[in-house]
């Protein structure tokens, strides 16, 4: 009996393990002044050159931006841009000249930039059918495309607001009289072309709805080859966005003058948006963006400043580590 109670009590005794006794070995970092100063200095040391590097990279990018929506509106239509843009009879060709500020080496990317265009609006983002874009058998899957899903002739391919509002300004570039080739291949993501837009899906009934939206599509080309559409259908995050139009694979020398012949078809006048054409080179940091470099530099500077402050405080008013006089009971006594 006694033995049994003993085994019973033994079984109730908690097992020892470092985990159950909360004695796991642990790293207990302490923010000593040395650590504080070191960490801020390290951040400063890392951030400052990174910032400079980014700024330098951004500086090397050559960018030409030209806003043309206002200038391409003939003066006679300036009070009524809608009728200009919606009419089929107006001449929408517009010629702009751009000056290359610095040498731009190939590839030079051509972008169109829209402003105040809410590609991120929920109604807009939702109004598409990925199934239909992928698979010719799913052409009827237009439920999500409201209100652009189809008419008496059958479903619209590609359906939905996004495709329907396809950007359709066109650009032609001339150096003097000589046209510059625009490479419109490989402006879309490879995976989109391969998997999201079917190579056997052809546009059908497109832009044949009662309202005409943006550009039309070549019905003989499968969607996977309609790269402008693919780029357009990657909805942008912000109302101001830039999308790739094409590439120029020849260098442009400094001070060269480039002529851009624009077909000004896309209606941004009605909602007061801007249209810009942009030529830009890119390097590892992407396009021109000084914000990044400046931010790095600023934070590097702030950290440097903080580090100096801590050093000063440490020199002027050091608190010895583990100094018991900072314990609350000692401080309270001092107050009394």
């Amino acid at each position, binding site marked *: *009996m006694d033995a049994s109670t003993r085994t*019973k009590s*033994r079984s*109730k*005794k*908690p097992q*020892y393990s470092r985990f159950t*006794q*909360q004695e796991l*070995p*642990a*790293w*207990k*970092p302490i*923010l000593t002044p040395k650590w*504080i100063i070191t960490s*801020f200095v390290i951040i400063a040391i890392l*951030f400052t050159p*990174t910032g400079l590097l980014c700024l330098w990279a951004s500086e090397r990018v050559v*960018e030409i931006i030209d806003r043309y929506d206002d200038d391409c509106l003939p003066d006679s239509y300036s009070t009524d841009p809608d009728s200009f843009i919606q009419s089929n009879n107006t001449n929408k060709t517009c010629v702009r000249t751009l000056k290359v500020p610095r040498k731009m080496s190939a590839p030079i*990317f051509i972008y169109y930039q829209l402003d105040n265009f809410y590609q*991120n*609006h*929920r109604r*807009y*983002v939702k109004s598409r059918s990925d199934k239909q874009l*992928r698979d010719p058998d799913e052409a009827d899957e237009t439920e999500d495309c409201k*209100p652009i899903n189809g008419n008496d002739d059958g479903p619209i391919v590609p359906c939905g*607001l996004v495709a329907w509002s396809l950007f359709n300004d066109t650009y032609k570039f001339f150096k003097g009289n000589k046209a510059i080739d625009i490479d419109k291949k490989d*402006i879309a*993501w490879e*995976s989109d072309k391969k998997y999201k837009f079917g190579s056997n899906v052809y546009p059908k009934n497109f832009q044949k709805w009662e309202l005409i*939206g943006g550009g039309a599509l070549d019905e003989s080309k499968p969607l996977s080859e309609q790269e402008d559409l693919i780029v357009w259908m990657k*909805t*942008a*995050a*912000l*109302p*101001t*966005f*830039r*999308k*790739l139009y094409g590439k120029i694979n020849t260098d442009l020398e400094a001070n060269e003058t480039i002529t851009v012949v624009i077909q000004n078809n896309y209606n941004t006048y*009605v909602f007061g948006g801007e249209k810009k054409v942009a030529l*830009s080179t890119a390097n*590892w940091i*992407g*396009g021109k963006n000084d914000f*990044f470099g400046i*931010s*790095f530099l600023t*934070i590097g500077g702030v950290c440097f400043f903080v580090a100096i402050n801590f050093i000063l405080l440490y020199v002027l008013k050091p608190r010895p*580590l*583990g100094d*018991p006089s*900072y*314990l*609350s*009971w*000692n401080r309270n006594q001092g107050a009394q």
Partner: protein
Amino acid sequence: MAKGITAKLLRSSLYTLTNIRTKPSYKKEAAATEELSGYPRVININQPAVPDDTQQPPIFCTNYVSTTKYTLFNFLPIALFEQFNRVANFYFLVAAGLTFTDYAPFDWPSQVVPLALVVGFSLAKELYEDLQRHWQDMTANCQKAAVHVKNGGFETKQWREVCVGDIVKVKKDEFFPADLLLLQSSYEDGMSYVETMNLDGETNLKVKRALQNLSLPAAVDDDKASHFSDFLATIRCENPNSNLYTFTGNLEYNGHIYPLDPAQLLLRDSKLRNTEFVYGVVVFTGNDTKVMQNTTQSPSKRSEIELQMDKIIYLLFGLLIFISIVSASGFGLAVRNTIRSWWYLVPEIPGEDFDINNFVASGLRHLVTALMLYGYLVPISLYVSIEAVKILQARFINNDLHLYDEVTGVPANARTSNLNEQLGQVDTILSDKTGTLTCNQMDFLKCSIAGCPYGKRPSEVELAAAKQMAAQDESSDGSLSDSSSLEAITVTDDGNINKKASSIKGFSFQDDRLEHTNWLKEPNSDVILLFFRILAVCHSAIPEISEKTGELTYEAESPDEGAFLVAAREFGFQFIKRTQNSVVVKERLKKDQEPVEKEYSILTLLDFTSKRKRMSVILRDESGQLLMFCKGADTIIFDRLASNGKTYLEATTKNLNDYGEAGLRTLALAYKKLEEKEYSDWHEKFHNAQISSGSNREELLEELSDEMERGLTLVGATAVEDKLQNGVPECIDRLALAGLKIWVLTGDKMETAINIGFSCSLLRQGMKQLCIVVSAEMLAEAAKDVVKENILSQITTSMQSIQNKKEPHAAFALIIDGKTLTYALEDDMKFKFLNLAVNCASVICCRVSPKQKALVVRLVKEGTGRTTLGIGDGANDVGMIKEADIGIGISGVEGMQAVMASDFSIAQFRFLERLLIVHGHWCYKRISKMICYFFYKNITLALTLFYFEAETGFSGQMHYDDWYMLLYNVFLTSCPVLALGVLEKDICAEFCLQFPALYQQGPKNLFFDWYRIIGWLANGVYASFVIYLVNIRIFSPESFRKEGQTADMYVIGTAMFTSIIWVVNVQIFLVSHYLTSVQLHTIWGSIVVWYLIVYIYGLMPVQWSAGNIYQQLPEVLGPAYKFYLSTVFVTILCNLPYLIHISYQRCYNPEDHHVLQEMKNMKKDVTDRKMWKREQVKATQETEIGLSARVDARMRMKGKTTRKYSSLAYSSS
């Protein structure tokens, strides 16, 4: 096998539904006969469920017991209802329902899956707990019992098949299947011994006696009892009730009526011991049994932190509603003003989202969408994470070897995990005395016989005083004293302490005059002889021979009695055997002579009750002399002395006063000689009263006992020491130094309470004792108003004396007794009383009833608004334990009832120190850090959605994939915060104990105050802002990589989400101080897992991933340097303010635990012992109780102002 279990389960649930919880219903005819007999319950023995000609037997409930909360059918509805009763869960339920509509900004899985996981987890936990209870029930219900069928044959049935009226046979060491009426036992006289440990936790055996005059044929153990085949009798008894110690009724058999009392009732869950077998009739079954009537579910309590957390949730709901309204108005305005011209949306066609002709309706619709979209502000997994963390924390408490009692083999047990962090915020401890502070083990220490005091060994109180004196002497010499030298002093003071003597449990008496039959040489040896005989005979104990050693031990009802019997044995009067009618004592009446056995036949035994405060036996000794031996409380006995029996009264009273001073419990012994005639007359009356039924039976018996117990002759008095539990004074000292207030609530009398107060250092010399007492005369005579007036004036004068105290260290102790407390607790006075009490260093309430204990706790809890902790071990503490914010049960000797009602159970009072100061402190900090962080991380995520909304014309579009949102709370960020909640430690256990002042961080709530909470919320707002702004600005509008492509919405979303994952994980890294491999793995693991998820999700076939992030990481973001740079930049920028904050705080405004961490890190505790000790002494709250305060007081008396090392002797031991 498994199938069998399921079958059982199903069947049992059916049972549950039909039979359980239905109160027994009685037929009307039965009710009519009840009226006549006075007892409502009629049981026909041996005819269970067989209809009689005249009346049908009343239907009683079955013997199936169920303690489960749910049944198979109501589990889902009830459990789900409880889940969705929480406001956050209800919100998420509605949100999940709405995801199936067009209002939802995301697909249904992103709301439904997390909700299902969270609720599923909670349900699983409930189910698991209930199944455990169910399996426990099943094992109980399926136990086997031998039930009489017919012709004396017995059949083995399961417990649940046992019916009221059945005759059941129970063998040795078996449990009783229901409440039984004892008919016959293997002993001829119908005695049986019962162990009631499961009921009241008392380990001593109880005697049960069968009805004596039933004249049943002798019982033989041959599984056949033919005399029961035609045993038809009727029991009329009381209805089921929860009172364990009462039972009244009659047994009608052969035309005779036999009265029944609790001595015949064998209770379910108690065990037959030392008796071969018994036969009994089932009286109460199933939920009617006393033990089931006594089960109460422990109340669900919520901690302060959780209540405050609810407020934060409401705050966040407020924020949610606010930003939703902002969104909705923004959307409504856009619909009215701008959207009209956005031709690419074809705005003129009204959709589910908006209608340009009705911008108000569109705005309101959008409000619903927005409320769902920003729902991430309220962390869905918060409750479930906290629950998981608390369960693990509770396991740490259960598994702590430092809380494990080697002696009893009982570990600590966190019975509810709700209150872990509350342990770190306790302000007032309200403690029971007996069994909690004291171990309820009595040591016979001194006695006074014939007015002459015997016993030289000092009590603990006297010893403590000697220690104090020694400490004082030592420190006045300026030398460092330690406990061993103190011991030496006390030992030399005492002279001849014999260590061996103390090895006898219950006997610490030391006096050569009485030991080893030396008493024969004493002048009053005849009185001494009588004294010893009374000790050996006047009791209700049972001797038990230990199988191992062959020694006799005694199973006594009270520990005092046990100590008396041990004492009597040591003096040579060994009680060896008890039969129903006699007591056999081996008496050694001459030196060097074999002891002689003497049999005293017991004629009547008048029990000890707390009301009577005395017990007597009337016996006939071998010479035929009738005697009455009586022992009881001194005042009671003194009142009953005959005029010629007061010879030693004066001397004895003086001795008793001395014993009281020394903290001893005293009883007086007396006797009286009886004439045959006198006894037989009295006995006849007494017997008649015994068998009478009706309500006045008790009164009648009481009166008759009183009549007999008069005209006594005083013999002497005993003094036993109520031993303090191990380490109690030290523990109280540490708790006091940690700033806790300790109240003692005891049912004991004032003198005893004060004695214990002294030995626990709750009281000390020089402390002014404010006794608030109303004299018994006043209570009896004066009107209630007068009494109250009197108490009020006492309280006021006491208060004045506190306010007018002159010296700064004057300490006051409030002592109040139960009767006075009744008035003081009334509404118009209680706050004055409380005000006085909180101004006193210690409060002792004596003679309080269990209900008053609960009332006092409630007063403190509600009056001060502070956290109270009730600790106790007995059934009388249950109310207090349930009422207090935290109830702690001592799983000690007195029983399980307190433990069953408690939130935590520990084996000894001294474990309270570690439970509060270590576990409480840790849990408090862990939970507060965890909750703050939880809110931070959700705000960080949810607000980025809000900013993005503003950029989309408040249309409700998200830039994150639905799956990111889904995984964020339940998977991506849950593990590190769980690890933090379970493993974080600011200070190691030793330091917590060494620097008790650290505990005050909890009661002062320094780590979960609004300042800190708002700070965290602000940090979340800042982080969300930085994350959003910087990412947007970095990725837009120009191309973000060398190949010239620009970022679309989901690329920016993924980049931003990556930043969030990094920011919140680095944040938790900065928050943690104690980084075990678990934390490091979860933190870095979460980040790695995030990349893996994006990668694998991107690789999945395009139809699954909705195409948004298909191939995103490898093709789009992976090769872009900006992606990585932006993550690094945002991560550092978001954590920079926090880093600067903690750096500054650490350098110039460190908190105590910071400094201690540094000390530990520099090993100052080893290298600079002197400073280390000095700081330990200083790291205390000012207190007027405890050993240290005692030493302080002494030092002050000696003119020293500072506490010196001397107190270390206690505080470091």
